[in-house]
């Protein structure tokens, strides 16, 4: 009997998904647990392992919208069964670049093998950095001995986005790449726009001392339990939300709903779009627990395994661009939430204290909120609380 390949339900509220790619060509042998197709909902990209072993008979082409539970293909036990299936359930011809790309590889009996990257000469550090940022080493020129790609080459590629080649013969523009607005990108697209068109957003900026934060991190590190900046800010936000519950709210129809739960989302970028996994009940968690949760979410994100449940139902968002060397910026609220905190980099600056100039590590905090439901003073009070917690973490206790 042929094995059915059906779309799994990836989260509580998921109803449909896009089958973005088949990872094996029609007729190719797929082993159990090998990735057979890629699904994308508006929140996650999911590489689906094969439910069994067999010869692939796809029913729907890549790019189709499909409902949860729908059978999208079969795995035939042998060639005879495959032939029978082809007659009984003629599959939509599998077209699209993905299938074309895997076909030759499939012929070579290793369905999803990528070209061996070890052929590119690159230092281990260069590889690690390129991997972290999704940079294609093949596109770089190495400046190391014998053309080896070294760290500096990757850093350069990171810093200066490669200029688009000048259009041949005048001012016409040529398309370098077309990126379909689907899946995660479509969700970002929709949410960002919905955010600005449905709310009256205003941003307040402040700057605060990061000395205590740096000290705390150093101490934790010495104690063998290091914490990230994000974990700290999540805690500061969660504790501040408890004191200012009205910030933890959404507009639903004609009412403002203030939430009891505090679920703080943290914007993360794994190189393929923006994800905002949530730290649930952040106000009830210790710094260690928040740190552990963030690490778990980040690992899941990197592996492309965040579930819909981990990505929905947040009440507030943290977005931290400090690592990118951004001083301060104006974040956009992630609806239906009503507020978001943006954190800039920590930098030493001269500050005047009691008539004296001294050098202090400072960081900028920017709060954007929906002015329809949160008044300026309320927003400012919340931001001030967060700011004081950053300045003096002991106040949180």
């Amino acid at each position, binding site marked *: 009997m042929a094995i059915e390949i059906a779309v799994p339900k990836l989260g509580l509220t998921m109803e449909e998904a896009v089958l973005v790619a088949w990872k094996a060509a029609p007729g190719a042998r797929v082993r159990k647990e090998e990735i057979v197709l890629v699904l994308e909902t508006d929140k996650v990209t999911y590489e689906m392992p094969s439910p069994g072993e067999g010869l692939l008979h796809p029913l729907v082409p890549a790019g189709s919208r499909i409902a949860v539970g729908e059978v999208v293909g079969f795995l035939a036990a042998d060639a005879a069964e495959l032939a029978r299936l082809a007659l009984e359930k003629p599959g939509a011809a599998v077209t699209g670049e993905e299938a074309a790309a895997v076909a030759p590889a499939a012929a070579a009996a290793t369905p999803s093998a990528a070209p061996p990257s070890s052929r590119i000469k690159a*230092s*281990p*550090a*260069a590889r*690690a*950095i390129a991997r*972290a940022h999704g940079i294609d080493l093949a596109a770089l020129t190495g400046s190391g001995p014998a053309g080896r790609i*070294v*760290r500096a080459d990757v850093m350069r590629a990171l810093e200066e986005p490669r200029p688009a080649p000048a259009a041949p013969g005048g001012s016409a523009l040529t398309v370098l790449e077309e990126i379909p607005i689907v899946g995660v990108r479509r969700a970002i697209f929709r949410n960002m726009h919905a955010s600005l068109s449905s709310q009256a957003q205003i941003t307040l900026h402040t700057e605060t001392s990061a000395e205590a934060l740096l000290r705390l991190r150093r101490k934790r590190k010495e104690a063998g339990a290091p914490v990230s900046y994000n974990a700290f800010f999540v805690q500061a936000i969660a504790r501040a939300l408890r004191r200012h519950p009205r910030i933890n709210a959404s507009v639903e129809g004609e009412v403002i709903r203030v939430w009891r739960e505090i679920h703080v989302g943290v914007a993360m970028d794994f190189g393929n779009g923006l994800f905002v996994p949530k730290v649930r009940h952040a106000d009830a968690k210790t710094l260690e627990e928040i740190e552990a949760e963030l690490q778990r979410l980040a690992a899941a994100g990197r592996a492309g395994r965040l579930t819909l449940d981990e990505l929905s139902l947040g009440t507030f968002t943290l977005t931290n661009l400090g690592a990118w060397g951004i001083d301060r910026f104006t974040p956009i609220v992630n609806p239906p939430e009503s507020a978001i905190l943006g954190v800039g980099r920590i930098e030493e600056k001269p500050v005047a204290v009691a008539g004296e100039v001294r050098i202090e590590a400072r960081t900028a905090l920017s709060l954007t909120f929906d002015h329809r439901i949160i008044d300026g003073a309320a927003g400012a009070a919340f931001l001030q609380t967060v700011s004081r917690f950053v300045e003096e973490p002991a106040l949180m206790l």
Partner: protein
Amino acid sequence: MAESYDVIVIGAGPGGVAAAVRASQLGAKTALVEAVHWGGFCLNRACVPTKLFAAAVERRRGLAAAARLGLRDVAGEIDPGALFGLKDELVSYFAMGTEGLLKAKKVSLLAGRGRLAGPGRVAVGESLHEAKAVILAVGAAWARPDFPGADLEAVVHPARLLEEAKIPASALLLGAGPWALEWAQFLSACGCRVTVAARERGLLPGFDPEIGQRLRAAWKNDPVTFLAGCRVIRASRNPEGGLAVTLSVKDREETRAFERVIHFERRPALEDLGLESVGLKDLRGNEQLQTAVPGIFAVGDATGCFPDLSHGSTAMGILAAENALGAARTYDPRVVPRIAFTSPQAASVGLGEEEAEEAGYDVVTGTAAVAATPMAMIQGAAHGVVKVVGDKRYGELLGVHALAPFATEIIGAGALALQMEATLEELARAALPHPTIAESLAEAAREALGWAIYLP
């Protein structure tokens, strides 16, 4: 008689020799100018003689512990006279070897003081030479300290001790850098009462502080006295011979008697070099080792880019020769290891933990205690650590630091790893030979990654 060259190198220390040989290898008509001795300061006065002494110190320690290994009735006292004799023999052998090597590599040797005489021109004694590129590898010169009494005869640099070939009864050594500490151990092993006075708080400034701290702990029972945060206020002649030295030790003044005060500071040897003829004030260069004047390169101690290290000079010499002939390579001082042939040895390459933090890395460190490993036990080494510094974000290796027997050999692996831009992962998975001290390098990397195998 004016002769025209592609490259003229001034100074035949490690930097100059490497530059001249490399230039000649690349087909350039090359001359090397040397005023005093082929092989330079390193071979004749510094690295080679003091490493011979360090070997004697180490061997003597080994002999003291020989009974443990079942060797009966061995003991060793250092006979400085014999050692100085061997030193002369070795040094003249290597100096001759250097001269022979240079000739074999078709480098023209010009004995005498070299001086810039305008762009592209070098005067040696009476004769004037022309060159398309000049590489200055003139090294450094001793810088006398500036406390009152520093000009007294008994205030000397260590090369003077080599000339005297005598061990003083007592000595005050200024500074706690590697070369001072090596001399301290040697003099002390020869029976000299040694005091080391350093402005800094710890031993081996510039190394990862943990290395200095551990060396100090290892020396707790050593007869060398160490005064931290100490400054010489003045020195004067003692009526009964030697010097009366007034020191400020942690803001308290005290006067002590020493036969000799030994200073170690050196500054680029820029005197009478004719720099003004080309409009240069110093020899600091760009990443490609070119000075502010095109066509004039500088390498080694002459650049003033301390720490002063022979292998750093050599690496610079090779690069400067290539760049003088049209390449555009850059010099990375970060991958040049610092070393101290103390007992136990210390070595350090790349960034220390604090340096890495200051540079903004999300730092992770890993250490492996050496003393508990089989080879350390076999060697009877009671102290030692190998420490790696890495960055969390990409797992990059940033520094390797060691205090251990053979640390100066082991650090070579660390230097190579850094130069190849290794990550902690590679180091952690290196199959380093067992039993060796070096295997702790992989264990330290594993510890940094959170999976040390032998850490209980």
